[in-house]
């Protein structure tokens, strides 16, 4: 059981890194809006995972993207931070506490809570990412625009990705 979930996670990590590096990094609307879809993996970690596990997976997710975008440490730093706060963010948006394993998603959290969770997490991650990337700091307004519009684009991509993957899961179940 453990090994199956390990390889599934590894596959997701490599797949998301490939999509990020091969396609999404090439998107740069208006010169600076780039979606960072790979955080989807971190946002979907369920509550049965240890915090150590979440941190390690997050770090390597970021590092995998870094290696192939020639940005050593940039994605690793922002992804690790997201991994650190992920369990807390989930708790923030879950209204009723149930004792079973919680997988963040529309079914477990409800549409509005899940969307709120995604938006907040994406904004935090993107703020750190673009802040680190634009050191030494130049124009604040450009930085804010980068964060907000990229987060918006990431959110849209996650919705599409989330809907298509949940449909796949439903198809597999039936």
């Amino acid at each position, binding site marked *: 059981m453990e090994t199956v979930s390990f390889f599934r996670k590894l596959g997701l990590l490599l797949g998301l890194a490939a999509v990020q590096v091969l396609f999404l990094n090439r998107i740069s609307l208006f010169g600076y809006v780039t979606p960072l879809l790979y955080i989807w993996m971190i946002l979907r970690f369920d509550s049965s995972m240890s915090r150590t596990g979440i*941190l390690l997976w997050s770090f390597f997710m970021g590092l995998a993207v870094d290696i192939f975008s*020639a940005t050593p*440490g940039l994605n690793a730093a922002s992804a690790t931070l997201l991994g650190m706060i992920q369990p807390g963010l989930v708790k923030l948006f879950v209204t009723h506490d149930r004792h079973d394993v919680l997988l963040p998603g529309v079914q477990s959290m409800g549409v509005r809570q899940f969307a709120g969770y995604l938006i907040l997490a994406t904004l935090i991650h993107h703020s750190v990412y673009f802040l680190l990337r634009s050191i030494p700091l130049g124009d604040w307004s450009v930085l804010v625009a980068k964060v907000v519009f990229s987060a918006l684009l990431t959110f849209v991509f996650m919705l599409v990705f989330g809907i298509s993957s949940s449909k796949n899961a439903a198809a597999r179940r039936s």
Partner: protein
Amino acid sequence: MRSLLDFIVKHSYVFLFILLETLSLVLLFGFNDRQKEAFLTSAGGLSGSIYELRSEVGQYFGLKKENEQLVEENAILRQRLFSLADSAAIRFEDSLSTGQVVVARVIDNSVRRDDNYITIDKGQSDGLEKGMGVYNSSGVVGVVLLSGRHYSIVLPLLNAKTSVSCKVMGSDNFGFVEWNGGDPYKVQLNDMPYHSDVRVGDTIVTTGYSSVFPEGIMVGIVSDVEQMKSGYSLRIAVDLAVDMGNLGWVYVHSKTPDPEIGELKSQIR
């Protein structure tokens, strides 16, 4: 003591977090520019082949446009060849013997960072060296910064460190094309003399003073001319001829500078 140990074990993830963040930040800031360039050129190994794979995937999307550009360029070259055949055949031969053109493929590129780099799939083994000019059918792309055995890093016009000597076509006043960041379609032509007659719509081309580029390679079109209030120079905005975000094949101008010029320059110093 026991409770302290318990505390540490229970919160071990906090230490892991601090460790991983430190590691990331060391990776991010611990390298100076020189080392980052080395990281980029380790392109010789793993990331080089990944870049290549990535560009192969990406290339399919641009094939049609690429083809059109090649056909257009073919037509222009053919035209030039015909006009040369009867008028200046000797000059043509002469210019061929002093310069050599290497065709390379762009395998990694960026336009949205503050300091952009391009990786191409030719290196020292193909005769590439630092300082050679890179251009494509539309115009100037950049200058070779570092050459590995099979790959090279190019400093594109969209990098604050790049400076290419250029002039207005039809005149001999020259300045330097530089980039201040931001818009990947615009560069500035600096150090143009105050009195030079530059107008919106003029074409900016390379001077050929250094051996980096041949003379007359297109850089862009003047979009705005502004007189500096204090200084004795003009601030000229130039729309780039090359779409930096969409590079496929490029030419590297591998002309070796005449040793006599280098000798003379070293005498001055």
